[in-house]
């Protein structure tokens, strides 16, 4: 079964929403039910205020988003996950360099996408607990004036590092970190497992996405 029309649109929305979704949270009316929902409820909705703050210029908004995101997302954990089996075989210095490149790439991706979703809100509707420190918080993406079914956006929150951190986001069932891991592992498979090649490619992408890599 090839990707059908709504599926392909969903795929792009997935890429875009997965990047911007953490910034679009709104506080639900009901009290949060657990630590993960509270994390999503109490922290991530701040992004919406930044998005809608017309007093900020583009650079201020971008910088505030970056600061907020890096405080909510466990970038290092995600970066190591996306390396797949190459995390174990790559030289440690290459792995560290990759974590830095991944951070730049991820931030650039967020920044290139977030502006598209300023008119949408996310509402927490519940959560499931996979184990004592692993939660899936379910939300709905609400588009004012739309008669379409709200899209489902799920956040994966881990609490085993002393505080809740976001490790993955899914739009309509497509998990961003899984997609990134599959991409990176596929790329490395085509390039003799050379992590430095991936770093160079990520840095190039970060530039193309609108932010120079450091």
């Amino acid at each position: 079964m090839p990707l059908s029309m709504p599926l392909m649109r969903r795929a792009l929305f997935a890429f875009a929403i997965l990047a911007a979704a953490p910034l679009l949270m709104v506080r639900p009316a009901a009290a949060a039910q657990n630590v993960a929902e509270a994390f999503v409820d109490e922290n991530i909705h701040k992004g919406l205020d930044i998005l809608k703050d017309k007093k900020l210029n583009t650079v201020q908004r971008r910088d505030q988003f970056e600061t907020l995101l890096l405080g909510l997302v466990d970038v290092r954990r995600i970066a190591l996950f996306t390396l797949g089996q190459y995390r174990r075989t790559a030289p440690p210095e290459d792995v560290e360099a990759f974590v830095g490149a991944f951070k730049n790439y991820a931030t650039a991706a967020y920044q290139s996408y977030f502006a598209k979703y300023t008119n949408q809100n996310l509402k927490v509707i519940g959560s499931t607990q996979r184990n004592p420190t692993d939660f899936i918080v379910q939300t709905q993406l609400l588009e004012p004036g739309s008669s379409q079914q709200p899209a489902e956006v799920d956040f994966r929150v881990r609490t085993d590092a002393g505080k809740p951190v976001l490790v993955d986001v899914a739009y309509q069932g497509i998990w961003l970190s899984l997609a990134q891991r599959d991409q990176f592992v596929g790329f490395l498979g085509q390039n003799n497992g050379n992590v430095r090649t991936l770093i160079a490619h990520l840095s190039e992408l970060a530039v193309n996405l609108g932010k120079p890599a450091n």
Partner: protein
Amino acid sequence: MRGLRLVALGLCGLLLAGCAAPSPESLAANDPYEQFNRDALRRNAKIDKYIVIPTVEAYFSLVPEDGRRGVHNFLGNLALPTIFLNDMMQGEVSRAGKSMWRLTVNSTVGLGGFLDPASKMGIPGHGEDFGQTLAVWGVGEGPYLILPLLGPSNPRDAAGLVVDAVINPTNQIRFKQHIWWSGTRQFFTLLDLKGQSYQTIQGIQRSSVDYYSSLRSLYRQIRNEQIRNGRKKGEDLPDF
């Protein structure tokens, strides 16, 4: 029977590709025909660039948005009998009822399916196909495949395409101009599909480190989500 021909073409290519030994990475990704698939994706991209996208652009310039939406609704309505049958084969009686209700409402009030009043009445559409039905019955997906023109698939879903074409009641109605009707429908189905997806594809290409792997991951995740019908969230996620 477009689907059947394309699947046959894909399988012929696979026989040739079978001569090359797959890499450990390809085997780990359940993609033993990866090099063949990558070549097929490149060929599809050329066909898209030189034939499909110009045709889509002509379609967009000649047919206004309302007209294109009507065509999209009409084609979706024609697919509803197949969706209904697959709902039933999966034991999804409630969803089958919704499919039948959508078919009834949109075929009548919706002027033969060109309009979609059912969605406004709170009966949104959903997809089902025989590939999903096979998955619900326990059939594994098999290795990843890129089909000519159609793109990402696997043996289970490719077989599902053929079965869906066979069981669709509208394909069983024989009349004098049947071949023209069938060809026109397939042409507009592909046009509609490409018209709604090519900008998406370009977006994924721009933001991907490896477009091929990205497409493979998205396809598998979307299909798994479809098979689960949105249930059992997060059950099969890996640990971080």
